[in-house]
């Protein structure tokens, strides 16, 4: 469905993507994960023919994007919520896209209704909230009723209600048999919607698997609370563990026995020490070397 093979792209001194390969199968929702700057947007833009790779290839539906016949009918994309002329109304933005793709004007009002923007459609985009812009982007992607959707950080800047709406909306779209590739650095979002993940870090593939397999194969994290959290964190880091602060405790990538021994050896008081079932967040943390994602 979407196939990335040996993709590399450098911008000046920055190697954005380095020999990345992965596949997205038909009919799945695939979460495309990585910290900010991991190369997600560059990869998605290469898939869509907007960025020319230095090496490797990216195809969608078996061909490079530019070889697709009537591309908006095959692939819909939401890349950045701001890619709309602020002085144009949302409805006119859609009319322009529809005209360019030879899509009937009636479809414009259909997609506006679908993303609940009918009332705001005649207003200029300048006055839209970020959530409204994201929904306008989704409406644009859906104009041609495409079988593949590529979404780059669609949850960015949404309030909790907006995120919930987006989640339900994506589930509905997937339920219609569409293939969805959705990038995010917000893991909870992806864990709740996607069935597969592609995790990249510094432009390279870290893991590609079904979410269930990722979680099953991962070590559980150890949760530890201590009044000397900072010192403990230093000790654990020195022992080569990855740690993640959460509330008044830490999630550590070591078994509880080892954490307890290290604490005892350094005379650190512990208030809690328990194993926790691995979450996607911990897997991600482990795979990407503990770099924070937000």
């Amino acid at each position, binding site marked *: 469905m979407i196939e990335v093979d040996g993709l590399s792209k450098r911008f000046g001194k920055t190697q954005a993507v380095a020999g990345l390969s992965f596949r997205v199968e038909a009919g799945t929702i695939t979460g495309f994960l990585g910290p900010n700057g991991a190369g997600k947007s560059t990869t998605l*833009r290469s898939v869509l023919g907007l960025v020319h790779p230095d090496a490797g290839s990216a195809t969608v539906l078996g061909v490079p994007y530019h070889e697709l016949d009537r*591309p908006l009918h095959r692939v819909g994309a939401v890349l950045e919520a701001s*890619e709309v002329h602020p002085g144009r109304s949302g409805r*006119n933005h859609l009319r322009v896209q529809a005209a*360019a793709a030879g899509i009937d004007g009636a479809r414009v009002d259909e997609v506006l209704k679908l993303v609940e923007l009918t009332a705001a459609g005649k207003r200029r985009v300048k006055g839209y909230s970020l959530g409204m812009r994201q929904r306008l982007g989704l409406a644009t992607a859906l104009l041609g009723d495409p079988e593949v959707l590529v979404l780059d950080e669609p949850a960015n800047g949404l309030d909790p209600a907006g995120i919930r709406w987006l989640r339900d909306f994506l589930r509905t779209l997937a339920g219609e048999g569409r293939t969805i590739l959705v990038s995010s650095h917000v893991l909870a979002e992806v864990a709740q919607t996607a069935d597969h993940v592609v995790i990249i870090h510094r432009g390279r593939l870290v893991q590609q698997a079904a979410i269930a397999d990722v979680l099953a194969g991962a070590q559980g994290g150890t949760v530890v609370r201590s009044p000397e959290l900072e010192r403990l964190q230093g000790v654990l880091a020195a022992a080569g563990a990855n740690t993640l602060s959460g509330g008044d405790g830490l999630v550590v990538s070591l078994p509880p026995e080892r954490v307890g021994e290290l604490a005892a050896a350094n005379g650190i008081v512990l208030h809690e020490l328990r194993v926790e079932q691995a979450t996607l967040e911990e897997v991600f943390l482990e795979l990407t070397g503990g770099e924070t994602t937000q």
Partner: protein
Amino acid sequence: MSALVRAELLKIRTIRSWWAYLIAIVLLVGVAVAGDTGSNANARGQVEFQIGLVESAGFAGLLALILGITAVTTEFRHGTVTPTFLAEPGRDRVLVSKAAAGVLTGLLFGALALLVVAAVALPWLSIVGDEIHLGDPDLGTRAAQTLAVSVLWALMGVAIGSVVHSQVAALVGTLVWVFLGETLLWGLFSLLDVDGAVSYLPFRALDGADGTGGEDVLGYWPAVAVSLGWIALLGAAGVWRTRRRDIT
């Protein structure tokens, strides 16, 4: 292709600056014609003077140039180039559609400007009882040339915008080139004793392509040919640049 041209025309019409262009043409041409007619009571019955009035419609060219430049650069400024190239990944086709939309808009600007000339001059001249030379062949030719040169200005704008994607750089750069660059080169050419070369500069050529001639040494058709040459050259550079550009 016609779908793309329709989309380009829709882009032009669905932002407010469209009305600003039309209002600017009406005001600039209207004021120029009224000023000329009012201050030339003795000459306004002559053919030459009335041809001069038609030349006031040349303001349409300046606005067509700005519209042509912004038709391309607005896409990069606001990022709308992303949806544009998603709908039509053939970037050459997008640029050609923009050029076609520029031709149509240039014609419309020229026609509107001529209409304003007629709307101000005809009633005025009738009221003061001066002879009106509407049937004069030279006047008709000048009107046609004014219309044609608006199209050339629009094409030049699209070509410039496709080379220089930054809106500010394209607009400011063009103004600086027109008012400073070509003048400095004119000075340089004089020093080098090749004064004639100045007529081959892009905007001097465009200036000659409105049929007015003046100090320009190129005749009408050579000026049109040189203008088209520059448009083709810049357009080719623009196609090359736009093809290679990463849309990030």
